[in-house]
């Protein structure tokens, strides 16, 4: 009851009396919680979508058999008989994966890129299935027509309804597709809904009979995948594991038996680093929110010093006074976090769409799980309590004698006067920790994040002792911009150093986030540009949605204006490392042709290209990426074992190259080795170099005219593909930009809060200034100047800490991931951040300065 009465008489009344500040500081927590929730929901939507992509492909299969080296050659269908004879296997359903395009499609001009490897094919995915078995594993919801009946070579197709509608096709029509043998027709006998398996390849999907698929695509007797259902529909994990081992034993090492879900896990892992980054940024937004709350409560305590003194005098205990503040914090935390959750759900929708673009996937907005909501809410309430903790404690320490003083005392504590010592210590410790990174086990970067907070806190503690110098240095400029009343305003920031410190700090963190994001983006972009000019070597990049025989390259080579053509083939390969088997990508190239078209990008500048090419040509040699070299401590001359068609074989490392393909998990080998050991003989892409003086567009057009249609070539100039990749990367980083922007918005709310407070506190003084002849405009300039100085200090410190942090995180990321990037600090980014900080400070000052200018002189001089 006592508590309720205190809430009624003191807490609620105080909130009502300071509702504007309550709401402003509430925004900090609202935005923090919203960002946290929306990021977690977006991440979940991304993960769900990836997992669903794989579960759609494998349906209710308990186990999946695929080839270990995923070359297009697949594996012989005799394996199917072996699998079916194994006890406990109920159904073994074969699939042949086909990627093609409809013949009437205009020449595709886009290559679908995905930063995280989920590139959509841009074409049509067909599954060759056994109609008697597959529907027991996968859900096909027939909308019209009939489903495939028997497994024959009959050329019929069932399409996803939305795809058919897009193409203006219906049941009974003929679908013309491109095959290695030219255009072939399939009769559409049914349409399925875009649900379950119908979601494969974003709905650009159809099913045909296995035998027909094998015949059409020259792959008779081959399979890409076998999905298995067990006799017991719900086998125990142990039973399933036994069956898996049994299967693996019987079908041999060339094939691998996996749990369907594990296919999605690899991609999930790739996404993880990105998501850790996003979580970190959302944590920072909440941290800035906490600053705002701390500041608001610290102001409240100073403002109410005499009130608390009086309450202490008439018998309120220290705990009761502390409790009063905590009650207010509780109300703020509870309601602010609730509002944050609502905003978070709205924000999540936007971010999910953005993430969908980044992943090149249609992400469906999943229901927000109660757990996430509860976690974000609890985090919001907890952070609010934590932020209000120190002011609440300070309120409890207020001496009852404060009630007897004429004016409330704004005493500056130890942290303000001596905090710089702790600040320097924190800065040194956290910088050392971040550079040394003694937490390699902490993949979630939780401890690292704490260290970053340490760095910010350290920088914050240095502010109070430097405020005076800042003011002195900027005085002439302030005077020049805002006039004499401006310099009066900028001097005011020294009057409450605690308040100034926290406001500057909140802005500093926001600006630091922007600097960090921008420098990371620029660093990546810079290296991506260099690497891409080699990776997509030459001037024109040719690919196709159907397999290309290597003689296509010879034909392109004969086109006038073409200087050289280099074929490239990517496929997956198993690598026997000390820890087990890792699947990496093998990029096969013809070293001589490749060197003519583009340059090898060696991580060691002193590498002799000629020697490397010679070594490669001798065979059984590869180049490894710097990522692998760093990750496994491998160097030139070492050997690695790759699984070939005839078992594991050692390849010598001829050199280390910079290559980001497949997240850097890539080796480069020769075309001859690929043919000999992996029995692959088709190209994924061709790099084309144009003769000097020839127009790239002209040569591109010539190739397109001659072979474009016949081989379904996608021709794209090196420059435009680079732009595509950079746009994609920008989109990926735009998520971070959103977070950084929110941090800055929260920071600017802090400025509004501080200035409003400082205007209220100085009402009498402002009245006096007006009385002795200061105009309203001068009063406005005075407040704007104060805000401007806060903006300048926050901006400069933010740029400083942001640069340090970006540099440190950059080093950490390079060591952890193996990416060898060149650090870039964009000068225009720095300038823009500084200007943005000042502009934001001026916008934030509009309301408080107007309020100050409207102070009524007579009332103000009587203001107590």
């Amino acid at each position: 009851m006592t508590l309720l009465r205190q809430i009624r008489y003191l807490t609620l009344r105080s909130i009502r009396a300071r509702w504007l500040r309550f709401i402003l500081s509430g925004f900090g927590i609202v935005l923090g919680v919203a960002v946290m929730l929306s990021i977690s929901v977006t991440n979940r939507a991304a993960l769900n979508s990836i997992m669903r992509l794989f579960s759609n492909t494998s349906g209710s299969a308990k186990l999946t058999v695929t080839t270990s080296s995923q070359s297009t050659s697949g594996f012989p269908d005799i394996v199917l008989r072996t699998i079916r004879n194994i006890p406990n296997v109920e159904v073994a359903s074969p699939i042949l994966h086909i990627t093609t395009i409809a013949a009437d499609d205009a020449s595709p001009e886009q290559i679908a890129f995905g930063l995280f490897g989920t590139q959509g094919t841009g074409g049509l995915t067909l599954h060759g299935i056994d109609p008697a078995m597959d529907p027991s594993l996968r859900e096909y919801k027939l909308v019209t027509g009939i489903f495939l009946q028997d497994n024959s070579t009959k050329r019929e197709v069932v399409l996803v309804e939305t795809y058919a509608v897009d193409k203006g096709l219906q049941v009974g029509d003929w679908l013309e597709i491109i095959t290695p043998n030219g255009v072939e027709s399939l009769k559409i006998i049914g349409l399925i809904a875009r649900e379950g398996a119908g979601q494969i390849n974003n709905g650009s999907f159809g099913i045909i009979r296995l035998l027909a698929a094998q015949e059409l695509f020259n792959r008779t007797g081959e399979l890409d995948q076998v999905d298995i259902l067990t006799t017991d529909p719900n086998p125990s994990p142990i039973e399933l594991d036994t069956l898996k081992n049994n299967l693996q034993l019987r079908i041999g090492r060339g094939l691998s038996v996996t749990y369907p879900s594990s296919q999605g896990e690899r991609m999930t892992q790739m996404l993880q680093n990105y998501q850790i980054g996003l979580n970190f940024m959302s944590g920072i937004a909440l941290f800035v929110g906490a600053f705002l709350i701390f500041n608001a409560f610290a102001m409240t305590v100073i403002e109410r010093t005499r009130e608390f003194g009086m309450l202490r005098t008439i018998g309120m205990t220290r705990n009761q006074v502390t409790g009063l503040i905590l009650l207010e914090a509780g109300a703020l935390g509870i309601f602010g976090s609730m509002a944050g959750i609502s905003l978070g759900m709205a924000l999540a929708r936007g971010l999910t769409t953005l993430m969908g673009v980044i992943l090149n996937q249609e992400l469906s907005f999943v229901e927000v799980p109660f757990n996430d909501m509860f976690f974000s809410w609890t985090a919001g309430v907890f952070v609010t309590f934590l932020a209000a903790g120190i002011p609440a404690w300070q309120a409890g320490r207020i001496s009852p004698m404060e009630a007897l003083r004429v004016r409330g005392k704004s005493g500056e504590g130890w942290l303000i006067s001596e905090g710089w010592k702790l600040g320097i210590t924190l800065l040194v410790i956290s910088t050392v920790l971040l550079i040394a990174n003694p937490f390699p086990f902490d993949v979630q970067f939780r401890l690292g994040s704490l260290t970053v907070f340490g760095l910010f806190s350290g920088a914050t503690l240095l502010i109070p002792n430097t405020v005076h110098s800042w003011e002195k240095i900027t005085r002439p400029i302030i005077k020049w911009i805002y006039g004499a009343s401006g310099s009066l305003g900028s001097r005011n920031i020294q009057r409450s150093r605690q308040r100034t410190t926290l406001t500057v700090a909140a802005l500093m963190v926001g600006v630091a986030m922007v600097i960090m994001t921008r420098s990371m983006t620029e660093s990546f972009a810079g290296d991506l540009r260099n690497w891409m000019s080699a990776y997509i070597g030459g001037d024109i990049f040719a690919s196709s949605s159907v397999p290309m025989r290597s003689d296509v390259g010879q034909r392109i080579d004969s086109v006038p204006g073409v200087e050289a053509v280099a074929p490239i083939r990517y496929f997956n390969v198993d690598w026997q490392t000390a820890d087990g088997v890792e699947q990496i990508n093998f990029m096969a190239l013809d070293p001589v042709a490749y060197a003519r078209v583009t340059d090898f990008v060696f991580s060691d500048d002193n590498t002799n290209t000629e020697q490397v090419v010679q070594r490669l040509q001798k065979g059984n040699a590869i180049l490894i990426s710097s990522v692998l070299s760093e990750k496994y401590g491998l160097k030139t001359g070492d050997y690695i074992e790759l699984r070939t068609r005839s078992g594991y074989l050692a390849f010598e490392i001829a050199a280390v190259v910079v290559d980001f393909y497949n997240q850097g998990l890539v080796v480069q080998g020769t075309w001859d080795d690929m043919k000999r050991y992996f029995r692959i003989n088709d190209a994924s892409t061709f790099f084309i170099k144009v003769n000097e003086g020839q127009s790239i567009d002209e040569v591109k057009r010539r190739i397109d005219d001659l072979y474009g249609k016949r081989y379904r070539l996608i021709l794209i100039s090196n420059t435009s593909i680079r732009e595509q990749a950079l746009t994609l990367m920008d989109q990926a980083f735009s998520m971070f930009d959103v977070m950084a922007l929110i941090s800055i918005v929260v920071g600017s709310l802090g400025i509004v809060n501080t200035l409003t407070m400082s205007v209220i506190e100085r009402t009498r003084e402002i009245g006096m200034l007006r009385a002795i002849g200061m105009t309203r405009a001068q009063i406005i300039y005075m407040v704007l100047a104060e805000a401007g100085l806060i903006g300048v200090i926050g901006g400069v410190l933010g740029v400083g800490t942001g640069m340090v942090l970006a540099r440190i995180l950059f080093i950490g990321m390079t060591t952890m991931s193996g990416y060898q990037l060149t650090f870039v600090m964009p000068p225009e980014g720095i300038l823009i951040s500084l200007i943005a900080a000042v502009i934001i400070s001026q916008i934030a000052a509009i309301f408080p300065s107007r309020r100050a200018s409207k102070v009524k002189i007579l009332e103000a001089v009587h203001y107590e």
Partner: protein
Amino acid sequence: MSILKASKLRKEYQLGEHVVEALKGINFEVKQGEFIAIMGPSGSGKSTLLHLLGGLDSPSDGEVTLGDAHLSQLTEYQATLARRHNVGFVFQFFNLLPTLTAEENILLPLIIDGKNPNEYEERLNHLLDLVGLHDRRSHKPDQLSGGEQQRVAIARALVTEPAILLADEPTGNLDTRTGTSIMELLQRSCRELSQTVIVVTHDPRAASYAARVIFLRDGNIVKEFKPSSKTPLNERMSGIMSTMQALES
């Protein structure tokens, strides 16, 4: 019967490198229902004395006894409770909560003590009668005049029926007429409620309402002035003024 006793009360402050002795061993006693004024020039130690008597601060040496409690031996928490139950405060700047109405401000000490204010309706009405604010009970402080605010503060100080009421310059922020009415109010509470009142003031007119005036200079009690109850107010005032002039010269 003595209700408050100060013995050998000393208080030192550290001011930079200097030690300032604000009180130099003060002894005095206050009886139940007494009305005392403490006077003295600036820096004489009168405010320090009030702080020590109210348990707001602890002495460097000596003892303050309030009823049976030795204030200087209490913990911070015990001292808070002692203030809550036994001491009423009236300040120069009223110190009302701007967010509460007059009657809520009066009831505040009870609310802090966890009491149900509804059960104190009778006491509230009695106090509103005493301070003459029945018709202003629902007004917020900013709707009240200075004098009215100080009346609310006095009612708030009396609501717990404290053993002593300490007032620090209660008329310092008021005009002469309002100040007079406040002092009359304190006198009435002393007479009608047998309330012990100690007022610190530098205003001889305010001090003239007290039954005993204690003069301080440089941390010592230098004189006591105890006029007979029949002495007219202006005579008391001139007596006090001449003593003050003598002390300040």
